[in-house]
């Protein structure tokens, strides 16, 4: 039986534990270009239109995953129920993602509260963060950054695919202490909200 190239790609993606790069897929065939591999992937995705799976490109390559719509139906079958992450966890990983590399102390400074050891441990256990070096200050604190696995977990290809941060408005730095209410009025035009 002659095996169709796109179905070999499908089998390759399905048999791999990790996402596969275009180069990995190219190595399966002789004389195939990366553009051709991408066309085959598009063809497969078109075939998956009515199905509950799809091919997604993430940071470490291509992988097949279930579509969101089918998830709720499948949850009862999962041994591990999806766990809800705490707000503290989201804020911590968001800081590491947007401000990397960052130390734990810097995270605490911005959040205004201490970061529990459990949150950091948990993020390491998920392999969402890694130590990329040590800051040359007192105590040589570890500099934390996100991993490819973090991006993979959110179906992202690169850090810049994260939704952009909202801009921070500049504040007038001079003020008049005696006439606070006046100065508030004159500055009112700039006091619209940031959302």
């Amino acid at each position, binding site marked *: 039986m002659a095996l169709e190239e796109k179905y070999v790609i499908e089998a390759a993606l399905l048999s791999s534990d990790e*996402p596969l790069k275009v180069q990995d897929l190219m190595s399966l065939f002789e004389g195939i270009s990366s553009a051709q591999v991408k066309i085959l992937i598009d063809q497969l995705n078109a075939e998956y239109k009515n199905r509950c799976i799809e091919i997604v490109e993430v940071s470490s390559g291509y992988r097949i*995953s279930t579509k969101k719509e089918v998830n709720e139906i499948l949850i009862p079958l999962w041994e591990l129920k999806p766990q809800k992450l705490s707000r503290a966890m989201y804020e911590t990983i968001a800081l590491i993602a947007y401000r990397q590399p960052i130390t734990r102390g810097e995270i605490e400074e*911005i959040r205004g*509260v201490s970061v529990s050891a459990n949150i950091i441990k948990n993020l390491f256990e998920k392999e969402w963060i890694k130590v990329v070096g040590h800051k040359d200050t007192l105590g040589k604190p570890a500099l934390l950054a996100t991993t490819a696995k973090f991006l993979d*977990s959110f179906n992202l290809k690169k850090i810049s695919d994260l939704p952009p941060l*909202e801009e921070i408005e500049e504040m007038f730095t001079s003020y008049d*202490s005696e006439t606070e*209410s006046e100065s508030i009025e004159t*500055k*009112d035009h700039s006091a619209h909200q940031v959302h």
Partner: protein
Amino acid sequence: MLLNEDQLKTHPADSDHIAIVNGQAVEQLPSDLYIPPQALKVFLQSFEGPLDLLLYLIRYRDLSILEIPIFEISNQYVQYIELMSELELELAGEYLLMAATLAEIKSRMLLPKVVTDEGVEEDPRADLVRRLQEYEQIKNAAETLETLPQIGRDFLAVHAYSNRVIVMPPIETSIALLCKAYQEVLLRVEQYNPHQFFSEPLSVRERMTLILDKLQQSSGKVSFSELIDQEEGRAGVVVTFLATLDLIKSLAINVYQVKPFECIYLSMKQN
């Protein structure tokens, strides 16, 4: 929408409202807290810290961070943390520190501004405003992140089974990464549980495994002298002895001696 100082004087923020919490009248209930008392505790616990609470106080009233009415907001803030301690919520030190910061800003706002060679003094609120803005930015980013599709919650990576018996995938090992992993574990331990951990000479650990190996192979008792390698000399005896003591301590083996100075025997604990 913003209150100036005159308005503040005619608009007392406290003592107008009373709520019943756990059967107790709470007089310090902040004026804008329209929350059923039973939900109050849960609500107050939901703040991620002082910045989060301050942001709530500002955003709830539709005020701008840039022009935070410090007198009003700091009064409310203090009421909230009083309420929190009244409800016996664990009040992190950061909350109290913020109360002090707010009080300091308040007093600086009342003083005439200082003009130095470098120009006019910075708005006393500036630093707090920057922190609030920076925190709000990350808080919103975290909320957005939470809405992104997430593996395990919104989708799963799928796999087909493959019969790979023929292929033994090579394992990449690195002594450097092994050591790094160990070092990192120890660093974490040091950071979180100081003084609980100390390093032991490796040779003792290794000897413990060797002794257990020997005991398993012999499936009976082994004399202490059998465990000693003559070539290792005195140091070897010490290491073996320490390993034996450690194994007794970890309750993995039995040790017995019929009479003083007679042969010491070791055996596995029976399960």
